[in-house]
Structure formats: C-alpha cells, structure tokens
C-alpha cells in the first residue's frame, strides 16, 4: 500500500470530472426513499394523530424525562469509554503483530453478531454480585448490575465495534511517510501521535464515537436484563417506548421514538458538517 500516492491534501473540490454521478445518485436516492424515508412516513403518520399539546405531554412526562437523563448520561459515558478503548484496540490491531491478534480482531464483531438479549443476559450473569466479575468488583464498592453503571456497560459492549471498525480502515490506509516525517523531525511518540496521527484519525474517531452514542440511545435488549428497571432510577427511554407498544399505544411510542430520532439525527448531522469543515481545514489551502 505504500506505493500509493500520498493522500493528504487531495480533498480539493471535485469538479465532477469523475463519472458515475447520475448512476450513484439514482441508486442512492431510490434506496433512501424506498427503504428509509417511506417507512418513516409510518412513524410520522402516527404522530399526525396527536395534537401538539398531546405530543408535548407524552414526551415531557415526568418518568419519560427521567429516562432521558439516565439514557443520555449512560450513553455519554459509554461513548467516551469506547472512544478511548476503541482507539487503543484499532491501533494495536493495525500497527502491531502479536500472537492472538486474529482472535482479538475476530472478537471485535462479536457484540453485533450476538442478539442483544444474549449480550444483556451474559453481562448480567458476569457482573451481578454472584458473577465472575461481580464478585471481584463488589468488594471494591463498585456495583455494576442493576445500576446505571450496568446500563453504561451494556451500551459500551453493544457499540464498541462502531469505533474500532471506523478507525481501523483509516489507520490501515495511513501511509508510513507520515510517521517518518514526524519522527525525523524529532518528535516523541506522544507528540507525533497527537500532532500527526490523531488529526488524521479525528474524523473517523468522532464518527465512530457519535454512532456508538446514537446506537446506545436506542438500545433495548442488552440493557433491560442488567438495568433493574427501577422507576426514575434505571429506566431507559427504549423501555418507555416498549411499554407504550405493549399498550397498543403506537402514537405514544412513536412520539417518544421521534424525540430519540431527532436528537440522534441532529447530532449526526452536526458531526457530518463538522467533518467536512475539519477535512477542508486539514487539507488547508486546497479547499
């Protein structure tokens, strides 16, 4: 791969000299409209049956608001932990060779392949006070299962592949010349990493972390088994949606789901816009 042209500095405005605009636009728009937007009309169809006051009452219900706090707090903690842990894993997997590397690589996708309920049950088994991990942690005063720590743990488990697998390709693609340049200039490992590598990884890392956060907001199966689901303390928003569905209250479920949807999309849009700016700045002058 080192034979490739040095890629940095190439984000300059494409002048549509490349072919395939029509084809890729056609495929993308067709797919997005049929698979993503059309079903979403169902969600908004449900919302249309609510008056603004009703909608507001549902989404600001005391217990639902408490669930936002729990969910967002735990998801934020999980995302930050995943950013650090995921970066470490991606780095180790790309940069080093060591025995067991393939196994480690394989483990990364496990959280996606396991149905979330299995993940939840297994984590609860391990981290409850009579589980393998719980027995170790409880004497240290850290109770994981049935607290918000458990919720964050389950979120972190189910969303770690987002960070690892988003950072990994970018890191793999990074030319060696970048390292060399930094090191010949006499920078230390840490400075070199911070000044040269991190800026290059930054968009991918932020994307991965953002996706992990968003995924955590909607996660249900993995969390309910370890959360304890006590009102106002460890109830997550996805549970509130689930309760409405059990009551055949599709409109209520859709209303709460729409809040999660808007928050998530706003965050992701912000990341996308920031990313565009960041890359332009990184590639400076050419933009």
């Amino acid at each position, binding site marked *: 791969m080192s034979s490739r042209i040095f890629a940095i500095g190439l984000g300059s405005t494409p002048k549509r000299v490349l072919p395939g605009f029509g084809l890729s636009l056609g495929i993308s728009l067709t797919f997005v409209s049929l698979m993503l937007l059309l079903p979403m009309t169902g969600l908004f169809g449900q919302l249309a049956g609510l008056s603004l006051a009703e909608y507001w009452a549902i989404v600001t219900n005391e217990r639902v608001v408490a669930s936002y706090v729990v969910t967002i707090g735990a998801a934020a903690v999980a995302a930050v932990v995943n950013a650090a842990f995921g970066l470490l894993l991606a780095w180790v997997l790309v940069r080093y060779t060591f025995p067991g590397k393939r196994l480690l690589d394989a483990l990364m996708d496990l959280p996606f*392949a396991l149905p979330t309920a299995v993940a939840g049950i297994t984590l609860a088994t391990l981290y409850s006070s009579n589980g393998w991990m719980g027995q170790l942690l409880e004497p240290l005063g850290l109770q994981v299962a049935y607290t918000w720590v458990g919720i964050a743990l389950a979120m972190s488990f189910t969303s770690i592949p987002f960070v690892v697998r988003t950072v*990994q390709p970018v890191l793999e693609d990074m030319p060696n010349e970048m390292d060399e340049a930094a090191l010949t200039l006499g920078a230390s490992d840490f400075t070199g*990493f911070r000044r040269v590598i991190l800026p290059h990884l930054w968009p991918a890392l932020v994307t991965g972390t953002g996706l992990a956060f968003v995924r955590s907001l909607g996660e249900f199966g993995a969390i309910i088994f370890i959360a304890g689901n006590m009102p106002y303390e460890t109830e997550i928003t996805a549970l509130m949606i689930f309760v409405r569905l059990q009551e055949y209250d599709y409109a209520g479920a859709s209303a709460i789901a729409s809040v999660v949807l808007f928050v*998530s999309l706003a965050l992701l849009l912000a990341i996308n816009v920031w990313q565009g700016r960041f890359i332009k700045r990184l590639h400076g002058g050419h933009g």
Partner: protein
Amino acid sequence: MQRIGDGIAVRRLLIGAAVVLAALFLLLPLVAIFAQAFARGIDVFWANVTNHYTLAAIQLTLFIAVLTIPVCLVFGVALAWLVTRFRFPGRRILQTLIDIPFAVSPVVAGLVYLLLYGRTGWLGSWLDGHDIQLMFAWPGILLVTIFVTCPFVARELIPLMQAQGSREEEAAVTLGAPGWTIFRRVTLPNIRWALLYGVILTNARAVGEFGAVSVVSGAIRGQTNTLPLHLEQLYQDYNTVGAFASASLLALIALLTLVAKAGLEWRAARREVHP
C-alpha cells in the same frame, strides 16, 4: 523503518492493555456463553443444535444474510461514491439520512415497516387485497434486516474515501480510462479493506438482529423464526442450554466471517509479494 509507537516498551504496554481489556470485556462473555451452551454436556448441546427447528432457523438466518449483503454493498458503494466524489446541494442531509437506521430503536424500525406493509397499512392493505404477504414471511424479515444494516458499508467507506480524496481517480480520467475501469482498478484497491469491514459488520448485524425482526416475523417455528428469535423462545421457555447453544452458533458465524477476511488478507499479501 521507524514508526510511531514502535518502541518496545510502548508496544508491550499498548498490546498488554488492549489484550487484557478485550479479554475481560469481550472474551469473557464469549466464554460464559460457551460455558452455558455446554453446561449439560456435549450431547445435549448437539441435540439442541441439530434439532429440526434450530436447523430451520440457521437456514433462514443465513439466507437473509446472504441476500442482505449484496444489497447493502451496492447501496453503500454508490452512496459513498456520490457523497465523497461530488458536491451538490443536500449532500450532508443525504449523508445524515442514511444514519436513520442507527437513530431508530430496532423495535420501532420493525413497527414502522409493520404499520406500512401490515394489514392495516396503506400499502399493506393494497397488497393484502392482491394476496401478497410481505410481513410475517421472509420478505418482511429481509426488508427490516436491510433497513437495520444498510448504513454500515457506506459508513465504513465515507471517512476513508474522504481522507483519500479523488486525485487518483481524476488522474485516471485524464488518462482516458472508462468509468468502470477506474472504479475497479483505482478505487476498489484503495477501499477494499473498508469494504470488507463493512461487509463483516453488515453480516454480523444481519445474523444477530432481534428487535426489528421480532416485530415483522410472526415467529412461526420452523418457518419464520430466525436464529435470534429461536434463541429467545428457548430462553423464555427455560431451555437455557438450547438458547446458549444457538447463541454460540451466532458467535461462530461472526468468527467465520473473520476467517474469510483473514483468507483474503493472506491472498492479497501474496499478490503484493509476487505481483
């Protein structure tokens, strides 16, 4: 050649930290799953795996994954090409829209499909009139699986293709290469790993999806039960060994895709050595 973080102390520290954390965080749950699957001996495990309903569930799950991957692949590549190689109004919006599946709780995703294509949905009632049933049959399961997994390929490709820029392809255009050749010869080699990760994630998520599928499947044993649904039923009905045996199969499917990836890596490495 010296690279950042190649010092022996740094390397050992980082590898050590990664391995220990991953062992505790990811390997331990896997071990616990296998421990439960084999809790009553290999015979009971085997009887559960070769049970008629388990086999039917495995077939359906793989069938859905095999159909999902190409769809996601075509869409993902097209979308990534579009948003990283061209500028047009609404580009960021489009790029954000593909994240809808991540932003929607899977159960809600299943529900919106159900409300659209189900008996009372506006499209569904028309289909019902023509005796076409999408929901509670494999087409419904396929639809929601595609919905849940479609962003992965695009999401893997976009950051990479952004970082790479398009100068290479532009150079190829000026040399007069036709579109498909450029894609095959220039773009594809540059993005192949990201593409592969996208496929691996798509596959993992497709076989493991529960929430959305549970809403549209109807859970008919031996017919519309995917492996995660089958597992859930066994667990609910106190067949813990059977449930975890199914879970271990899902873990194995995920590991197998990684074996496939290792094979591809090996072939690629060989080709680079002997061009």
